[in-house]
């Protein structure tokens, strides 16, 4: 592998490094500061560059790619506005721990600080929203910096890393040799949990009468879903998942209680509230999960397994912290348990909660509802699909009603809650996953936030199914206005201004379908899923005033859970 030193330009070195990092896809948009890189790219054949239509789209696409494949998502954009347009995607990736490497062009080194044309201090701007970032000041540092960037992005708790590339660095030359190793004195993630702590965790499981596994996205990132399944199944442990954790444990298994938190199932939240042992696995006690942190699982002994020490004791104080890779820790806990454990009484209790208040929706008035659309998508794909949702009510219904059976089958913006995420993220996912349909689920509001990326999907003939759940409202905001803001529907009604989505899609070059009643749903999906030489759009006109339940109001405790609409409007 190791080659002799060669004298190369920064641009050549750049792509050689990407070759070494086995990069196959890069999402980008050209501009003045990166022209030399694009000149070089013209002759590069080992990777595919995907031209998006907005740099925000590039970062979300790279996120979708990374979340679908587990690989690092790579972005290349120009300086100034190109760089600032990536900010939302970078912040989103930071919140959801998505491994990205974002390369931004920069004005030439001697112009930095001069308010030069298209200069922005992107390193300064992104410092609080990256895991780390770099300004490359000398072409001799380029290779090692790129190596470090990929290493930092993909190891430990993953996250976005930005590399700012001044024009002169790319244009100048030096001897190239790809570093074999790197040594970052200040960065040594801990992968193996403390033995005594692990033993203690196993002891607690043996002692517990009412244990619960609370599983976050970390289990998927660490590749620990098999270890989770083994521990949970062999020991009859109930599993509840966060939004990012969905798919880590199959949602169709009886042991799955579904999602917990603000819009979690009644059963999951009751179990959290009553358990005597809570094991948090790669989860971070986000406020959308805990509500009031003081009453969250208040009687439980709490164990927290996470690779990021700062996640521990941040929002909720725990009794037993285990810093390490959750995959290893799960396997080790399981190996400490010689006899399978049983919790029969606890399961009786859990099952009675399941029966008491299952997820249900009105389905006999002939009107189309989002819940039904999501169920229909599940039935059509048998769960064998990659679902990329946007942000809002439809996102929560997707989380509730699509029983995710596989890891990396649900991609959504959780921590930042970025509307406009789904369309570009589904494009990235579609480049990463070829053996399953990719379905992008959007509200009519968020769909318009990165609608330009439909062109990208058309240009690359991606077989994405874009679903627009059209309730003519910024539905989730409308729900809060109805529940908490005196029914003042301030600026959330889009009915007068929404475009004709079918026509819009057709103008972009998609085949488009309209569904207005439940009975049209199945046949339309059958038709839409026949088309695989390019994207399709399915607009679903759903009931306008529906609300997502159950709901625990923000900051409140499980006792305040609203399980169904109090006044029957509509």
């Amino acid at each position: 592998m190791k080659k002799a030193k060669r004298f190369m330009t920064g641009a050549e070195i750049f792509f050689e490094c990407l070759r070494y990092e086995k990069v196959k896809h890069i999402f980008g948009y050209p501009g003045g500061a990166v022209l030399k890189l694009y000149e070089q790219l013209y002759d590069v054949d080992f990777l595919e560059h995907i031209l998006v239509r907005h740099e925000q789209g590039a970062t979300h696409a790279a996120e979708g790619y990374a979340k679908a494949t587990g690989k690092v998502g790579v972005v290349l954009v120009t300086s100034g506005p190109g760089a600032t347009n990536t900010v939302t995607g970078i912040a989103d990736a930071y919140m959801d721990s998505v491994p990205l490497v974002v390369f931004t062009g920069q004005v030439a080194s001697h112009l930095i600080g001069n308010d030069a044309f298209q200069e922005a201090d992107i390193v300064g701007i992104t410092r609080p929203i990256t895991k780390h970032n770099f300004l490359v000041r000398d072409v001799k540092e380029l290779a090692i910096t790129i190596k470090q960037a990929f290493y930092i992005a993909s190891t430990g708790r993953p996250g976005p890393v930005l590399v700012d590339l001044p024009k002169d660095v790319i244009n100048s030359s030096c001897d190239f040799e790809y570093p074999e190793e790197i040594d970052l004195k200040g960065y040594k993630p801990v992968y193996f949990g403390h033995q005594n702590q692990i033993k203690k965790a196993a002891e607690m499981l043996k002692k517990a009468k009412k244990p619960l596994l609370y599983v976050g996205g970390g289990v998927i990132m660490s590749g620990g879903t098999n270890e989770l399944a083994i521990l949970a199944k062999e020991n009859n442990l109930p599993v509840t998942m966060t939004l990012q954790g969905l798919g880590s444990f199959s949602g169709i298994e009886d042991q799955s209680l579904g999602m917990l938190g603000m819009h979690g199932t009644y059963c999951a939240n009751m179990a959290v509230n009553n358990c005597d042992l809570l094991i948090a696995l790669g989860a971070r006690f986000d406020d959308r999960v805990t509500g009031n942190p003081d009453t969250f699982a208040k009687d439980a002994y709490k164990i927290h397994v996470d690779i990021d020490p700062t996640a521990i004791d941040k929002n909720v104080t725990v009794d037993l912290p285990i810093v390490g890779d959750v995959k290893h820790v799960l396997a080790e806990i399981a190996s400490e348990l010689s006899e399978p454990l049983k919790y029969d009484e606890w399961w009786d209790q859990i099952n009675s909660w399941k029966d008491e208040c299952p997820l249900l929706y009105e389905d006999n008035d002939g009107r189309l509802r989002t819940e039904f659309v999501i169920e229909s998508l599940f039935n059509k794909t048998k769960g064998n699909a990659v679902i990329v949702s946007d942000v809002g009510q439809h996102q929560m219904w997707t989380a509730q009603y699509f029983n995710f059976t596989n890891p990396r089958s649900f991609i959504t913006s959780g921590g930042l809650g970025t509307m406009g995420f789904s369309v570009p993220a589904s494009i990235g996912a579609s480049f990463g996953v070829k053996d399953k349909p990719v379905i992008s689920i959007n509200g009519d509001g968020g769909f318009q936030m990165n609608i330009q990326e439909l062109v990208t999907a058309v240009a690359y003939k991606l077989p994405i199914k874009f679903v627009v759940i059209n309730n003519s409202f910024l539905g989730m905001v409308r729900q809060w206005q109805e529940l908490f803001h005196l029914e003042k529907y301030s600026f959330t009604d889009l009915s007068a201004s929404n475009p004709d989505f079918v026509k819009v899609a057709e103008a972009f070059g998609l085949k488009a379908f309209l569904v207005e009643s439940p009975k049209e749903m199945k046949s339309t999906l059958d038709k839409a899923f026949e088309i695989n030489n390019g994207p399709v759009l399915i607009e679903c006109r759903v009931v306008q005033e529906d609300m997502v339940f159950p709901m625990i109001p923000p900051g409140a405790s499980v006792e305040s859970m609203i399980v169904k609409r109090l006044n029957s409007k509509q």
Partner: protein
Amino acid sequence: MKHIISVLLENRFGAFNRVATMFSGKGFNIQSISIGETEMPETSRMTLVTSGDDKIIEQVVKQLNRLIDTIKVVDLTQSSNIIREMALITVFYQKGTRSEITNICNIFRGNIVDINNKTLTLEITGPPDKIDAAVNVLMGYGIKEMARSGAVALKRGEQIKDQRKETTFTQL
């Protein structure tokens, strides 16, 4: 409670900013920061004075550790450690008070580093509470201007084991 935290930092572009950004982003407070070279040219040592309850300080230390540029983070709050600060204090004097102020300066083992017809400038070094005490006394005479360096600190010498040249970090 006040905490003195010592951070060994890679001497890289933006490293200092990253620490400052983290403090403001997380809402931690900083009473003082001092930063300077160490025995190793590629690192710098930063001494931070911050305050908060145990939970906050634990997060401060963890968040500092999490930054890629930080090599080592230690809470040196214990008084057994060596903590020093320097202050330059310009004080007004009158006929009768000049020798009083000079005496006070001696008591605090300071130096008079400047004098003119109205003011004296004192240089005082010591643990921060000693500086506080000096400032309190001098306030009575009227302080014209003051500059404090912020604390610098080192762990008091645990015997360094013979580890060839790599003893570098054990100091901190």
